[in-house]
């Protein structure tokens, strides 16, 4: 396949080279939580199990632990009414956001709707009532079964629209005693969260109006490395190993909940087997319960979800209705968005999925040139699995609706939808058309063969081919990362010019460590440093004092890299001073190139830097950098996905023949890593579009497929041809001016495929996943 062409060729970043830790992972030597914390290594280890609510809504009236306590191997049992448990303040699963602020001053405070160990469970799978520490998982599990629990089974509701009815059971009376709609106002903003121009007047004056609805579902992250932790106490210090992806936030959360000084908590995170936004962020009740069990027993306690238990949070189920008005010439004059988000049992980040991304990020950016725009939305509690962040927050859901509105409107106006998009969407800092958007759409159109696209349903025969696309603004440029506060790194140069790089980030697979290492090497070109000379510390350890860059965002692909030129300049200056002392001169009279120091006025007088360092007993040379990202408003580039599908009208099976995934990312930091995201994102994209779906028994509220046999993740056999296209059209601030791309790669897939299905069959189907039975029933309904 074609290599992407870099706008400014660099020595290491943007090139095709192996992943930094490729050999470590390919040889099975990379150690993950389960490899490090094992009974085989530490006979003292205990194992925790936590009671899961078997009902969608139920309260524990009493628990009798007598029989469970008698079971040999059971060390301690915590229950919901234990004074140490009830002393914890309420929390939520999105407690800290990106920042490391106090509980009281968070950027995005969320609803405090979680208790560490409640007496009431609000979904099947909720941690509730009791936690056990025992010599093995089996014993702990048996102990849970020996608990005598008296349940009060409460009425439940699964559907958000039913949950909004006045007679619906109230799920979180402490948040809203009146009903299940999350209170608006305050930090959550008004219900009509954007209203500019005069939408009603614009609709009245529009030549064409469309109204569409798209429903996104609770796809699961389905990460291989199930979540867990191991906690032990060293005196009054809490030591926590975990595979959550946020060391600092987990540390802040534990310190805050246990009311410990921050330096009395140490969080260590090794290689992590995937994340995609799960459990965002460092706040999980199981951390607290495990820490409490460890303190009670005086022994290390490990907790790890089973595969079933790891169905623990999902993409937020969100239904958007969009009304769009346009003039005959294709100028979109008005858009009205109405969203209902099903947060499931806990609020998590669903308010952000509903309002933050679609509103602040897109309403004021992508939709900046739509003169009349109103957005309204409500978040509703139900008794299903909670929604959280998954490869973005709300982007895929709103894209599913915008891409539909555009497709329908273009057909009404008899316009190519690409032209409709280019005519109307961009961002607030630039006039239309947006060059990045144009490049993405025309680039993708060429690769998929858009010019040969036929009209809707115009193919004959049983198997019908069709093409569709969707577009979105990209994700995370530097100005959007200012709110993170400082990015930090440390460069430690050894006397042999090998290097240790402290660029703390939990490596969940996204390749950001490779980006940092390549940027570091090319910044230190004056020392002839190569990527293989750099040891990047893969375990995040909060005891180093460096802030880790949370993988909540693909921005980690450039955050550390942007600091490297400054780090390199400082290191050079320090080396010049050291060498000047040794050479009996001053730093301004010498320079370093190719790892050799020389006199500027007499370049023949030269010496290897290495020799000077070895002789001086001053190495390692340390440099630290701590900076906020540049805040210059540069806008954000675009992304697009094009799909070519075949629909078998006899079986209802949808086959994706080809996907073209286009990302303008400013600067490509790690080419195979970026292409890997573009391709790999489709595992989720295709899955949630065609096969993945959590299925509930409506009568009992019990989820039926919390396993990987019945929850169908794409395999190699399900993968179509995927062509990744990387572009560098837009540029952000800073040396590299890159943006993230991991989230964006799944954003447009479902809509691109849905539009392609329409193009193939002439029938709209707008509730993913497009399983054969749904496709067949839509086709037969349309035929009647």
């Amino acid at each position: 396949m074609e290599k992407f062409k870099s706008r400014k060729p660099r020595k290491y970043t943007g090139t095709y080279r192996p992943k930094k830790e490729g050999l470590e992972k390919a040889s099975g030597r990379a150690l993950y939580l389960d490899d490090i914390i094992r009974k085989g290594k530490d006979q003292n280890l205990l194992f925790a199990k936590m009671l899961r609510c078997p009902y969608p809504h139920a309260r524990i009236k009493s628990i009798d632990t007598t029989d469970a306590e008698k079971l040999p191997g059971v060390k301690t049992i915590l229950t919901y009414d234990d004074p140490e448990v009830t002393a914890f303040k309420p929390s939520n699963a999105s407690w800290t956001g990106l920042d490391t602020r106090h509980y009281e001053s968070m950027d995005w405070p969320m609803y405090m709707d979680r208790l560490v160990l409640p007496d009431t469970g609000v979904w099947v799978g909720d941690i509730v009532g009791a936690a056990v520490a025992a010599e093995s998982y089996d014993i702990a599990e048996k102990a849970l079964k020996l608990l005598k629990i008296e349940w009060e089974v409460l009425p439940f509701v699964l559907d958000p629209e039913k949950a909004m009815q006045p007679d619906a059971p109230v799920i979180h009376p402490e948040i809203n005693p009146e009903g299940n709609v999350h209170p608006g106002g305050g930090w959550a903003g008004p219900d009509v969260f954007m209203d500019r121009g005069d939408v009603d007047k614009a609709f009245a004056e529009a030549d064409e109006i469309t109204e569409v609805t798209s429903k996104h579902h609770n796809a699961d992250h389905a990460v291989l490395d199930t979540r867990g932790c191991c906690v032990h106490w060293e005196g009054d210090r809490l030591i926590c190993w975990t595979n959550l992806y946020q060391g600092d936030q987990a540390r802040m959360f534990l310190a805050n909940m246990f009311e410990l000084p921050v330096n009395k908590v140490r969080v260590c995170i090794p290689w992590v087997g995937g994340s995609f936004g799960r459990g965002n962020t460092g706040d999980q009740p199981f951390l607290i319960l495990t820490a409490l069990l460890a303190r009670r027993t005086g022994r290390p306690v490990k907790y790890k979800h089973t595969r079933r238990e790891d169905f623990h949070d999902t993409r937020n189920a969100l239904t958007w209705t969009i009304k769009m008005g346009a003039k005959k010439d294709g100028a979109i004059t008005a858009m009205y968005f109405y969203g209902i988000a099903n947060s499931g049992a806990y609020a998590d980040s669903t308010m952000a999925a509903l309002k933050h991304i679609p509103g602040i990020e897109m309403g004021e950016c992508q939709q900046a040139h739509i003169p009349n725009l109103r957005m309204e939305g409500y978040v509703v509690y139900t008794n299903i699995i909670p929604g959280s962040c998954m490869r973005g927050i709300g982007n895929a859901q709103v894209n599913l609706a915008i891409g539909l509105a555009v497709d329908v409107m273009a057909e009404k106006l008899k316009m190519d939808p690409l032209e409709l998009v280019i005519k109307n969407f961009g961002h607030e800092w630039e006039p239309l058309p947006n060059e990045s958007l144009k490049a993405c759409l025309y680039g993708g159109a060429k690769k998929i063969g858009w010019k040969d696209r036929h009209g809707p349903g115009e193919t004959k025969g049983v198997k019908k081919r069709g093409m569709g696309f969707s577009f979105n603004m990209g994700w995370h440029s530097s100005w959007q990362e200012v709110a993170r506060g400082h990015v930090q790194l440390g460069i430690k140069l050894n006397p042999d010019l090998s290097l240790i790089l402290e660029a703390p980030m939990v490596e969940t697979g996204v390749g950001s460590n490779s980006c940092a290492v390549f940027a570091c090497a090319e910044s230190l070109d004056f020392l002839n440093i190569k990527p293989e000379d750099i040891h990047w510390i893969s375990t995040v350890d909060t005891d180093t004092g460096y802030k880790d860059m949370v993988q909540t965002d693909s921005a980690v692909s450039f955050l550390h890299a942007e600091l490297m030129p400054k780090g390199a300049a400082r290191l050079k200056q320090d080396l010049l001073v050291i060498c000047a002392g040794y050479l009996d001169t001053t730093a301004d009279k010498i320079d370093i190139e190719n790892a050799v120091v020389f006199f500027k006025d007499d370049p023949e007088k030269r010496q290897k830097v290495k020799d000077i360092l070895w002789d001086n007993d001053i190495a390692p040379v340390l440099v630290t950098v701590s900076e906020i990202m540049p805040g210059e408003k540069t806008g954000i580039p675009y992304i697009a996905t094009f799909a070519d599908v075949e629909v078998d009208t006899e079986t209802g099976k949808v086959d994706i023949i080809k996907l073209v995934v286009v990302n303008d990312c400013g600067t490509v930091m790690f080419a195979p890593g970026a292409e890997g995201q573009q391709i790999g994102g489709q595992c989720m994209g295709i899955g949630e579009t065609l096969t993945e779906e959590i299925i509930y028994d409506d009568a009992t509220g019990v989820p039926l497929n919390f396993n990987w046999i019945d929850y169908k993740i794409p395999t190699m056999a399900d993968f179509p041809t995927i062509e990744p296209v990387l572009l560098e059209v837009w540029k952000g601030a800073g040396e590299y001016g890159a943006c993230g791309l991991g989230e964006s790669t799944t954003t447009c897939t479902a809509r691109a495929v849905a539009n392609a299905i329409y193009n193939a069959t002439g029938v709209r189907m707008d509730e993913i996943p497009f399983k054969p039975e749904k496709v067949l029933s839509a086709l037969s309904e349309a035929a009647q």
Partner: protein
Amino acid sequence: MDKIRMKVNGEWAEFDLTIDFQSSDSLAYVLKEKMGLTGLKVACDEGACGACTIIKDGRAVLSCMLLAVEADGCEIQTIEGLATDDPVVKAFADQCEPGYGTAMQCGYCTPGFVMASKALLNEIPNPTDEQITEKLSGNLCRCGTYPAVRRAVLKAAALKTNQ
């Protein structure tokens, strides 16, 4: 039976029932917990994902779905038994061919894929695309590296042929 013996990565190892393991323990448990062979990953524990794949008597098997007692007398190869210059390991590590991405991202499924690929190439030294798909579709990669994995397997086949 109160003891099992198996030849693991070329050396015989012996385990006592009840002392070292229970009759209900999986082969994955004994290899990982008792022998410290941590390369294999237990990600689903129900035979759905392939992360625990090892080679038993020349064939790729799911070590979470085999009881330890079923491995008595068998020859087991885990990823620790492969050399770091093994063509499959090397091909997975080095994959950066334009247009396919890297052959692993988070790496949790990788040891399983490497062992499944190893068994595939032992059986079919020069597999077709269809044969690779057939043999590796029991392994899940949520990071979605399948196209790069396929390239790595083809590369490993070429490396082996040239050795």
